[in-house]
């Protein structure tokens, strides 16, 4: 199988990740932060080491690294926990449903109102102007993805973060497609809350997600319950991570996530990002000579992301992915849980085929894909 669906989850995982998960299950699988016996303390220490690694990677305090089930869970905690009745929210036109749906639900519940700012794919200035035009007196939060999960469009989060700081508006970033393949620095980029999946670019196992808070960000918990601390109080602890981390955490997953983060740091984000963009640009070049293919991602410039979306004339995106699957190539077609992004690019009728590469893909993988896409275009494969 040539795996080109790394935007959904990265595969394969580094050996070190598999080893770390195994060790956690075999050697120190006690409940972290609870009991006082050596195994529980060791488990707690491993969880702390993961917090520390992630805090260094994304520039925040280690106690403000909150482990969640996935990025959706982190986003829901951030969105529900930061908004109150009467607030106005602005989201980008490229948001995943994990941002749109919780915001839309809160609007339907009569708690908030929201607007969508249009991301101009090739103009940071116009994108920022579109956002500025929607700011109201009661705008409390702006939420946007760092990179579109469908088209690879890069949102100018540095500029947005700087502007929002000057307006004292909370900035929540969905780093689902960016973490591990692009530099994300909460302090430098003015990000108040960063939400990440553990199983995509960070190379960890599924069932892991991370919510990172700046020193000034405060959230009302979404979940209440046992934290292993302040146990004689009926109140949820006010300190982090306990405030937002009720219930037993996914120790095995977190151990794997730490190993994944270490892998990324040792390879270097810059180096991974460069290699992945090279593959995507090689694919773009190949696709440009295949008749009937429309590439949507960054049509006017070379890409610096790890994904690309396209369609083929006379084929629904799902059919293209199905034909590729028969040749042993895994792609993701359809709507990618992103109504807004497809609406924004005019692909709401057909969806699109997404190719997303990871650290283990090679030029040969891309050449094979290009070859089969050409065969499909020539109707040699049906």
């Amino acid at each position, binding site marked *: 199988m040539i795996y080109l669906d790394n935007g959904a989850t990265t595969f394969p995982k580094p050996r070190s990740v598999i080893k770390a998960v195994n060790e956690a299950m075999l050697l120190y699988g006690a409940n972290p*932060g609870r009991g006082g016996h050596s195994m529980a303390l060791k488990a707690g220490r491993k969880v702390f080491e993961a917090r520390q690694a992630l805090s260094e990677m994304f520039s925040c305090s280690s106690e403000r690294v909150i482990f969640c089930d996935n990025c959706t869970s982190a986003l829901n905690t951030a969105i529900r926990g930061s908004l109150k009745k009467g607030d106005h929210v602005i989201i980008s036109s490229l948001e995943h449903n994990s941002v749109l749906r919780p915001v839309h639900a809160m609007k339907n519940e009569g708690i908030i109102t929201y607007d969508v700012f249009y991301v101009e794919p090739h103009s940071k200035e116009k994108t920022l102007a579109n956002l500025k035009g929607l700011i109201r007196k009661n705008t409390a939060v702006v939420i946007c993805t760092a990179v579109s999960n469908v088209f690879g469009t890069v949102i100018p989060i540095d500029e947005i973060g700087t502007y929002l700081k000057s307006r004292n508006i909370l900035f929540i970033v969905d780093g689902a497609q960016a973490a591990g393949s692009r530099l994300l620095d909460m302090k430098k980029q003015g990000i108040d809350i960063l939400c990440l999946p553990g199983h995509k670019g960070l190379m960890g196992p599924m069932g892991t997600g991370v919510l990172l808070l700046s020193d000034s960000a405060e959230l009302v918990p979404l979940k209440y319950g046992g934290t292993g601390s302040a146990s004689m109080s009926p109140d949820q*602890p006010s300190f982090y*991570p306990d405030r937002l981390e009720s219930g037993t955490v996914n120790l095995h997953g977190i151990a794997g996530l730490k190993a994944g983060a270490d892998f990324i740091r040792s390879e270097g984000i810059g180096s991974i990002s460069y290699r992945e963009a090279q593959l995507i640009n090689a694919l773009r070049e190949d696709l440009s000579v295949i008749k009937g293919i429309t590439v949507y991602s960054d049509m006017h410039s070379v890409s610096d992301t790890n994904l690309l979306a396209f369609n083929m004339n006379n084929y629904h995106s799902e059919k293209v992915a199905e034909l590729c699957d028969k040749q042993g190539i895994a792609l993701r077609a359809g709507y990618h849980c992103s109504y807004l992004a497809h609406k924004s690019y005019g692909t709401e009728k057909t969806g699109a085929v997404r190719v997303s590469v990871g650290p283990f893909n090679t030029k040969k993988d891309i050449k094979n894909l290009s070859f089969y896409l050409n065969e499909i275009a020539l109707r040699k494969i049906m």
Partner: protein
Amino acid sequence: MNYTYIKFENQTYGEKAVSLLAGSGIKASLRRNPNPNHKQGCNFALFVNGSIWDAYDIITKNHIKNLGVESYRERL
């Protein structure tokens, strides 16, 4: 036997202190608090190999949240 230790609400703060102190050449170990009280419930105790007040000074200067220094006499 008398014990003196620095108390932390959770293991996260305690481990952060261990890591910080190690950077200053102070060895410390973290355990569950052997003497929890009914108001605070479960928490963690940091035992320092050396001056506890030097360690406490470093921890507070670096804004690591803690519940202060506590002494405990073990009853056998």
